[in-house]
């Protein structure tokens, strides 16, 4: 992990200039902003129009089924991560979800487990590393995938490597499924990106800060201790 981290950092440092007054969590801001701009161009030209068309053309019922189908596949991997984090009960719940949803839920297109009160979890390798005590490391904006960090970037690489979709033998089917999943994910984020557009003075900064907060919350499964802000000295409201 560390060796890989150092390698990645060295690679990145080669291509970036440090910016003044930068956030200590984002030493590669110059580079990251470049990737961010690239992502925005791609998103505007391809991803957003496709996702918008998908949302407008496909009925929400069907979109729910598609989301559930991929969510069910994802639960296998979420369960594995829960086990790796020592959360055996949650892991058990994830496998129970897969069992119910794959059978009663017809290959996962119906999320019957949630209706039975077995809620979905959110886990990935980045969170598992976090649970093991590994810090986020510097912020990274990945091409296409967007906000990440050195730790979560390594996690994402592992996520893809262990993706159950990779087991699909037919290349054409695998690619189509992967593409459908991506379009669905982007479609679900359409509203979120509109809210971001509305809320942020500087989208890059807003998204970065939200990313760190979100990941921290996820690592603690929503029970993160309240953060103390160092610049939060006595404030007279």
């Amino acid at each position: 992990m560390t060796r890989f981290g150092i390698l990645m950092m060295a690679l990145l440092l080669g291509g970036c200039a440090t910016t003044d007054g930068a956030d200590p969590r984002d030493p590669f801001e110059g580079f990251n902003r470049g990737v961010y701009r690239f992502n925005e161009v791609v998103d505007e030209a391809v991803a957003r129009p496709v996702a918008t068309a998908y949302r407008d053309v496909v009925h929400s019922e069907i979109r729910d089924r598609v989301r559930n189908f991929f969510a069910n596949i994802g639960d296998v991997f979420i369960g594995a991560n829960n086990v790796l984090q020592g959360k055996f009960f949650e892991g058990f719940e994830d496998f129970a979800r897969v069992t119910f949803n794959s059978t009663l839920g017809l290959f996962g297109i119906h999320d019957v487990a949630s209706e039975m009160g077995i809620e979905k979890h959110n886990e990935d390798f980045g969170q598992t590393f976090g649970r093991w005590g590994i810090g986020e490391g510097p912020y990274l904006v990945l091409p296409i995938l967007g906000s990440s960090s050195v730790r979560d970037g390594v996690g994402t690489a592992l996520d893809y490597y262990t993706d159950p979709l990779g087991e699909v033998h037919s290349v054409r089917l695998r690619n189509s499924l992967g593409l459908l999943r991506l379009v669905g994910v982007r479609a679900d984020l359409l509203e979120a990106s509109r809210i971001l557009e509305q809320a942020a003075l500087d989208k890059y900064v807003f998204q970065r800060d939200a990313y760190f907060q979100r990941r921290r919350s996820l690592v603690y499964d929503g029970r993160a201790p309240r953060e103390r802000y160092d610049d939060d000295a006595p404030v007279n409201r």
Partner: protein
Amino acid sequence: MTLRSTASWLLGLLLAGAALAQELAPDVLVKNVTTDVIELIARDKEIRTGDRARLIEVIEAKVLPHFSFQSMTALAMGQSWNKATPEQKKRLIEEFKTLLVRTYASALAAYSEQRIDYRPLRARPTDTDVTVQVRVIQSGAQPVPIDYSMEKTPDGWKVYDVMVGGVSLVANYRTEFNHTVREAGVEGLIKNMRAKNRSLDKK
């Protein structure tokens, strides 16, 4: 009972109701306001067809009174808050309020009949600072938690931060605000926010 006494009795009841409303427990308040607003939007044709001005009107009437924008702005500013003069503070609060109301409008416009699960409040009766937890349930995804941080004030409970999925709205502005204040001063920040709000007016 004569008509007049019935009328005054009714009036008395209404006034008592208004007084009671201020004493509403924070979790009840959140639930009432949320249910109200969702129902209003569902019934309002103009809003459903995308009338943003109308949506903002509803938010200003129904939601705004339950937020403490002074606390929100102070918390988002962090240390920079003390660098602002009382007059600048006023303008900061005004601009931040506009920005937040519009953000809230975008979030509400995105709402599409997801089920909302109101969590039981865990607080002592003597507490003056509580977190009211709500979760938005959606099929095939982890429920999204929304936490309202609320403080007790003489005019009832007021929200001073909203956390969505573990992301504090107020904290999320802090880096940006402090950075802008360091670079361009408090005036620069006010100018930035005003420009942002103006640019959204045109859309």
